[in-house]
């Protein structure tokens, strides 16, 4: 079934909802299972007009599944959906759109070579191309003004930053006429500052009469930016609470079922210098210079944190350190190996360099290969698990099983299971299990807690700290300042492809923030 979305102005639309006592969206007794796995078990959730309602929970708690039911992507096994008090049948995303429900997914659904206007038009087709292009452009600027978004409409979306792409996604659902807006982990990929701006925009949306469901991991943003908080665990709703009646530790307890607080603990050793990066210049494949005379050094037994707003050369720095991108100037010295600037990725691995990249599916795990294969590749490359002529699959499986147990990788039913089936946190634990199995002397970790819940993130941090305590030099590159402040023994701030300031720990958050945004 097709329906042309209502194209009234946002305020008129959102204001047109009926009785404020009737929830704009109500999900009742929703049950959804995938095979034997029950993702949602008799879940109730409602959204009132004009509110921001946070949905908190660990990875796999069922938050996204619940929202996918509302957005028409999953059909519930049982349960009912009411929109503005009336029962609704949502059989697909187009039904949801007709009911003014719009969802922004964690992974954006954008056509990268198209501009923002073209992307939004593609999702909301109407009339002739040229004509509707103009019309859409006008609609977009209305909506953008309303929420205070600033987006370049004529650049290919692929050339926009993550935060800008997200704004395009949000504008897409607004132009489609949505007044029930679901945002799945919108701040996970944003920096502090960008996240703050987004949360303010969300508040504007709500005060214009829309309602927003905010799926998140982050306790503080649900405490400060929402009207109600619903906590989910294991496919069930734990409780719906008001933010001024709870504290962060209360929420943590509800989320994980136990209290969990991470504490800093500073390094006690002062080892000798392990890794020295001197005056690195590098350009991306498209010729854009991204690293500019970048220098830092790391001693063994310390975590060197590199803070910075995303897109200031972090990804390129990781590639240079891993040997995937050759710098056009400068050099990298490794204690015991001398100058390793010209060495390949496989040679660096042999020197004891391990890497936990930010893009797990793209750089760390082969989703279609088994857990055992993904764990063993490191060992196989360093000459373990049989000879060149014959792989010893039995000992691969055996070591995989013991690593899975040691690193508490959940959800592994067999070592032959495809690794794509692991959730984010468990996939990350598998990466760490592999990277640390070779007792690395240098660890490069890029946003290791990205997309992880509280518990998985604490486990990952624990592993980084124990690697440090065993004498590894750890480079922690993260856009999450909390993570840097929690773990790093020394902090360098990266801005425009270079380290602009260094701080000893414990460092002043504001001073770091200032260095992050300074220099233009």
């Amino acid at each position, binding site marked *: 079934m097709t329906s042309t979305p209502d194209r009234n102005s946002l305020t008129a639309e959102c204001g047109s909802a009926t009785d404020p006592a009737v929830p704009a969206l109500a999900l009742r007794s929703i049950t959804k299972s995938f095979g034997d796995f029950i993702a949602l078990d008799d879940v109730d959730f409602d959204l009132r007009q004009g509110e921001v309602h946070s949905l908190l929970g660990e990875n796999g708690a069922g938050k996204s599944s619940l929202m996918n039911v509302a957005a028409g992507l999953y059909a519930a096994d049982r349960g009912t959906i009411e929109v503005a008090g009336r029962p609704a049948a949502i059989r697909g995303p187009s039904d949801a759109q007709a009911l003014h429900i719009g969802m922004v997914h964690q992974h954006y659904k954008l056509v990268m070579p198209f501009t923002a206007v073209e992307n939004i038009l593609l999702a909301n087709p109407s009339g002739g191309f040229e004509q509707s292009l103009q019309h859409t452009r006008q609609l977009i600027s209305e909506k953008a003004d309303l929420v205070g978004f600033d987006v370049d409409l004529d650049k290919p979306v692929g050339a926009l930053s993550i935060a800008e792409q997200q704004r395009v996604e949000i504008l897409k659902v607004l132009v489609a006429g949505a007044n029930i807006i679901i945002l799945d982990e919108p701040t996970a990929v944003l920096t502090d500052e960008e996240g703050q701006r987004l949360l303010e925009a969300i508040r504007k949306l709500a005060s214009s009469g829309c309602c927003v469901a905010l799926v998140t991991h982050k306790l503080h943003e649900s405490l400060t930016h929402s009207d109600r908080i619903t906590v989910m665990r294991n496919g069930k709703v734990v409780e719906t609470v008001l933010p001024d009646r709870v504290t962060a530790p209360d929420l943590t307890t509800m989320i994980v079922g136990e209290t969990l607080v991470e504490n800093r603990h500073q390094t006690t050793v002062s080892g000798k210098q392990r890794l020295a990066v001197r005056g690195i210049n590098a350009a991306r494949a498209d010729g854009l210079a991204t690293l500019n005379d970048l220098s830092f050094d790391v001693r063994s037994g310390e975590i060197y944190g590199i803070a910075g707003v995303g897109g200031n050369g972090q990804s390129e720095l990781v590639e240079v350190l891993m040997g995937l991108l050759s710098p056009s100037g400068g050099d990298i010295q490794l204690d015991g190996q001398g100058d390793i600037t010209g060495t390949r990725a496989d040679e660096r691995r042999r020197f004891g360099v391990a890497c936990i990249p930010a893009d797990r599916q*793209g750089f760390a795990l082969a989703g279609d290969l088994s857990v055992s294969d993904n764990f063993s590749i490191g060992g196989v490359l360093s000459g373990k698990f049989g000879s060149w*002529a014959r792989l010893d699959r039995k000992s691969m499986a055996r070591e995989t099983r013991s690593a899975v147990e040691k690193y508490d990788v959940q959800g592994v039913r067999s070592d032959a299971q*495809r690794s794509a*089936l692991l959730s984010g946190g468990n996939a990350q634990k598998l990466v760490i299990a592999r990277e640390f199995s070779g007792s690395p002397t240098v660890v490069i970790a890029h946003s290791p807690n990205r997309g992880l819940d509280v518990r998985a993130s604490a486990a990952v941090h624990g592993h980084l700290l124990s690697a440090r305590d065993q004498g590894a030099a750890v480079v922690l590159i993260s856009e999450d300042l909390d993570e840097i402040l929690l773990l790093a023994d020394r902090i360098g701030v990266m801005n425009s492809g270079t380290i602009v300031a260094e701080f000893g720990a414990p460092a002043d958050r504001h001073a770091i923030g200032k260095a992050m945004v300074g220099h233009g």
Partner: protein
Amino acid sequence: MADIAKPRRFGRINLEIRDDMPMWQQSLAFLAGVAAGLAVSVLILIASGVGPGALINEFVVFIFTSPKNISAVLVQAGPLIIVGLSAGIAFKARFWNIGIEGQVIFGAIGATLVAINNIGPEFLRLPMMALFAALGGMLWIILPALLKLRLQINEIITTLLMNYIAFNFLLHLLYGPWQDPVSSFPHSQQFESFERLAPLGWQSLNMSLLIAAILVVFCFWFMVKSRFGFQLNFVHSNARMAKALGVRVAVLTLAAALLSGALSGLAGFAISAGIESRMTQSFFIGYGFSGILIAFLARNNPLGIVAVAILVATLMIAGQSLQVFYQIPFAMVQLIQAIIVICVAASEFFIRHRMRWVD
């Protein structure tokens, strides 16, 4: 819009993404795909005038009860297995070798070069021919491989174009320097008896089948048992990631491409020294695409390649008799192959998805 609040009398089918499927179920889905393809093909053949009885006769009784036909199928399967392995190994490294036909031609040219010029003593002649065939195949793939690795030039285009060069070079040889001096036909002179693959002593089977078997064992070892194959799986999955993990992607890709070329070259040797006993201008036709098709259906698995190659060979042989006795055009055989490929490709849907009844 129906109201989902109301209890319904009838359930519905939910379509779900499957996590995993046990190997035996996957094989079953594959066989069901083949069966569905054959069923559709039978309908088409009946519609074109071949009676059901005649079909059973041609495909089942005639092929599987007559030793002569069984051996004809196996003889046909030999080179198909080898080109299937060639495609499988290249595809495993995500090197899309469309140039198998050209490499088969250069394999045959290599073998014929040895035979015509009497290179080496007689007892070493066949091994020399095999060696030159493998080198010929490698020669015809190394340029596209280096262009891809050095300059990122798309190998689909280069390997495809190399086919045309190889074919025209072959015609040049057969109408020029290598034309049979005895008959003046555009083919090379017949190979001496010690330049032909010896019969195995049962029907028309010869050593080419044994060569195919040895190559299957080699490829199984290389792709499944050895450290190379393990790393190749990562290259197949995501080359950039494999590189980040320390796999030497360029070296492995080059090795896989060269091996693929060598295998195609050996297929050229097996056909010219085992079936035709000379180099002709059409012996290679269709092998390139059959190889791609076989590797695709077998998902690059060496043992699967054997099974699919035998199936394709059966179709070819049965097709020949349909052609002769029922005036069915050979295009019909190709149609049947295509239908089976489509059905098997469609069966992937059931491997990736699950239909579940929900009440």
